């Protein structure tokens, strides 16, 4: 029989997380195995190649590509300064002479006799790679980076934007139902991972940015506010590179939805602790979910604990009595209990016949819900 599944989001007070931190291009690794690091420790560094600029010299000079070298003042490997001529023509009348200036300071990378383009490369830029987690280096990859491990509490969200951020946990809501309003965000929240309840709106975003909140963790957001924050409609859920002033992690979904009590309580128990978070999300195979990692600061406990993979629960089929969240209208966001699992297909108001379950709310009310529209909550 077909089962219904959770998307596998994890909320756990104790686990071990290992992160592989790799430079985008080879460089120098600055740490050793066994070394304790903090989230901001630079573990590796490299020089990133400068930007490449192309200059279509043949178009600018009105010549053909194969004769480009005759008109070049610079050769491959030559350094150039911004504004310095790199090529010029030789007209009969001198004042008709055209010069092609370098748009940037750098070196001449290549000259194409096919396309007539000249590639200029800006000087390299240094890049420092941080550890992201307070933890221990458990493996190094020469020239590339290292793996950092930490015993921690872990909260995975359903969707996020923005990259990595580190800050101390602070509460912006007294209970999971409360909204994270601008009034709740104070100067004291600068540099924090601020935990809200059910919703944050665009005014809240503006206030968080103004104050300098590092990351926001909240139950829900409204899509028009996300659109206003990003300045565009988010098409495909591949995120992590946005720069909106903070990292945003939503734990439940779009709309005003109370944060699951378990998540809220776990985060509330960590107020004042340092957390590493990332908004990076990819909702496809090879799925990446946003995360809040709160190291426990128990270095000695690391090796003795099971790895993240080992403790990952295998989800599975629903059973009567299981606690579930309804994840689609008309009862979207509500928490209830599986009361019955009828085997036969049932007719929905849409006219479709699907497998359903009978869900019971706290007040005893029972409703039929398609099995595809519920999520199992970790007990």
């Amino acid at each position: 029989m077909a089962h219904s599944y959770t998307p596998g989001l994890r909320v756990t007070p104790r686990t071990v997380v290992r992160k592989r931190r790799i430079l985008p291009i080879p460089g120098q690794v600055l740490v050793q195995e066994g070394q304790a690091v903090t989230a901001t420790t630079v573990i590796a560094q490299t020089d990133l190649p400068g930007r490449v600029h192309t200059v279509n010299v043949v178009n600018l000079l009105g010549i053909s590509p194969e004769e480009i070298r005759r008109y070049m003042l610079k050769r491959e490997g030559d350094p150039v300064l911004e504004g310095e001529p790199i090529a010029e023509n030789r007209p009969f009348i001198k004042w008709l002479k055209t010069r092609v200036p370098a748009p940037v300071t750098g070196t001449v990378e290549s000259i194409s006799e096919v396309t007539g383009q000249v590639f200029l490369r800006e000087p390299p830029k240094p890049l420092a790679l941080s550890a992201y987690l307070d933890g221990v280096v458990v493996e190094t990859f020469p020239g590339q980076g290292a793996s950092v491990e930490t015993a921690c509490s872990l909260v995975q969200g359903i969707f996020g934007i923005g990259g990595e951020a580190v800050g101390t946990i602070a509460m912006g809501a007294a209970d999971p139902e409360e909204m994270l309003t601008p009034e709740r965000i104070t100067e004291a929240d600068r540099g924090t991972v601020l935990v809200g309840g059910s919703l944050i709106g665009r005014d809240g975003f503006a206030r968080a940015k103004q104050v300098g909140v590092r990351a926001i963790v909240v139950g829900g957001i409204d899509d028009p506010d996300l659109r206003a924050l990003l300045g565009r409609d988010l098409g495909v859920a591949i995120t992590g590179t946005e720069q909106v002033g903070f990292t945003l992690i939503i734990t439940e979904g779009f709309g005003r939805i109370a944060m699951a009590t378990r998540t809220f309580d776990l985060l509330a128990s960590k107020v004042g602790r340092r957390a590493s978070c990332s908004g990076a999300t990819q909702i496809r195979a090879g799925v990446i979910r946003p995360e809040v990692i709160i190291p426990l600061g128990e270095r000695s406990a690391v090796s003795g604990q099971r790895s993240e993979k080992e403790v990952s629960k295998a989800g599975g089929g629903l059973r009567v009595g299981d606690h579930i969240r309804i994840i689609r209208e008309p009862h979207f966001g509500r928490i209830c209990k599986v009361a019955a699992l009828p085997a036969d297909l049932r007719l929905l108001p849409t006219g479709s016949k699907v497998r359903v379950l009978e869900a019971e709310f706290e007040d005893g009310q029972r409703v039929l819900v398609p099995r595809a529209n519920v999520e199992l909550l970790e007990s």
Partner: protein
Amino acid sequence: MTSSTGLGMTTILATDCGSTTTKAILIERVGGEYRQTFRGEAPTTVEAPFDDVTRGVLNAIQEVEELSGRRILEGEKILTPADGNRGVDIYVSTSSAGGGLQMMVAGVVMAMTAESAQRCALGAGAIVMDVMASNDGRAAYEKIERIRHLRPDMILLSGGTDGGTISHVVELAEYIRAADPKPRLGGGFKLPVIFAGNRDARGRIQEILGDRTALVITDNIRPVLERENLAPARHKIHDLFLEHVMAQAPGYGVLIGWTGAPIMPTPAAVGVIMEKAAKQQGLNLLGVDIGGATTDVFSVVDGQFTRTVSANLGMSYSISNVLAEAGLEKIQRWLPLSLPEQDVRNRIKNKMIRPTTVPQTQEDLALEQAVAREALRLALEQHKALAVGLKGVQQERTIADAFEQEEGAKSLIDLYRIDLIIGSGGILSHAPRRVQAMMMMIDAYQPLGLTVLAVDSIFMMPHLGVLSQVNEQAATEVFLKDCLIPLGSCLAAEGSAKPGEPCFAYTVRFAGGREAGGTLRFGGLLRIELALGEEADLQAEPARGFDLGAGKGKAVALKAKGGVVGLILDARGRPLVLPAEPSERAAQLRAWAKAVDLYPE
């Protein structure tokens, strides 16, 4: 177990591992012919916490077992061959799980080799995640970060004409090496990279990428500027899809061992069965497979087959991108009820982040079908644009053609000449009422003249496509008898007038001699019962300014084929224009919905 002819097979099991759902069907020889008898489905389990596609496959097969009473599995092994009410003769499968084949392509110049590489990957059934070029405006480090971040299934690297400069394509290879990308699935393996660029650069490319990637070198896709040569690289993409992507996707190593024929990418399998059907019946055909992540459009016009894959137009993972590309107004225009913007947006985003949920309310259903109309429309637009000048397997284009294409010149798709439109994919195949599927396609494609429409009954075209590789007879028989559900015919007039002015007069003569007739006014929509298997003579005379296929104002005499919906006479005009005022538009949509019995009362 396998045979090229499939002779002697009595029981066939096929699955399609989609990005959201894994669907299993059982085909049995009944009374001397092959029929599809039972089906089962289960959520695809390629992601955490399962990370094993076979879980979903086994669940779907178990459902088939329960429904059919046939024992197919012994533990986690498929029993072969069939023996009485036990086992199957062959098991075949297709896959688009995890969003299908996801590729990144690279070329030196965006409008030249990078574009050719893009066309090559699309033609092979891939989703193109990003197109990288030396002149794409991004800094080198941005490109490197992008390669790392995207985690494609494979990279197609092209660039340079044969005998031309090698430096730029070598530079692209250096970026790839620097990124040291890991494949999306199976992180411990090397990422497949196909080099199909300047042959003089092969040695350098081998030096740079040979040790870091699973490098495959093939013929240049742009040996000279004026010519594309896409076939060799495309074949390599298919080979690598099987050897690397499929083999390294979670559980696929096991799944490959179960199948009696190579696993095909879902769009490739759908294309195979559509092409065979069009050729067999001598039709011009337009087909669409609207999935969770992508929408694939296929056409066979005058025997020429074209396929496009609209990446990121889909009904679950990509649903939000349909909103982004079409715009909110375009989606709201199809809603017969008023939903606030915030509500529409939140519902769409929630579907994106929880892609396996199903609509439970009329509102949700109407919203998903509104999004589907726009996804279908946009995918057809992209198909029309890419179908220009394409010659299928291999094409030759001059520089002049390239300019023509960019300007959107002649498309191969002339809607007057399309005889049959086939819809496939959950939103169409599983629509609670068949008329909903028919109206989604009519509204999105706006067919002209007389067109037959059909849906894939339970989304089995992928299964039949892969089956046709080993048993064409079974695939064809099931396709004709069980797969296609004829919805009926649609007669639509091109033109515009004031509401209420005459559009066309019609007379329908049914097989028994009964007649129906009248005049449809502009803006009108009529559904006439014409049962499955029946045909009727349809005569229609358009008003001046309207065209039914014979020219403006010229009468037509046609044979209309029946179906589960019947005959739709569409006098709403082409292009279809909806009232601008929201309440007026909603009232109009409700009137049309009532005219064709679209929703329950």
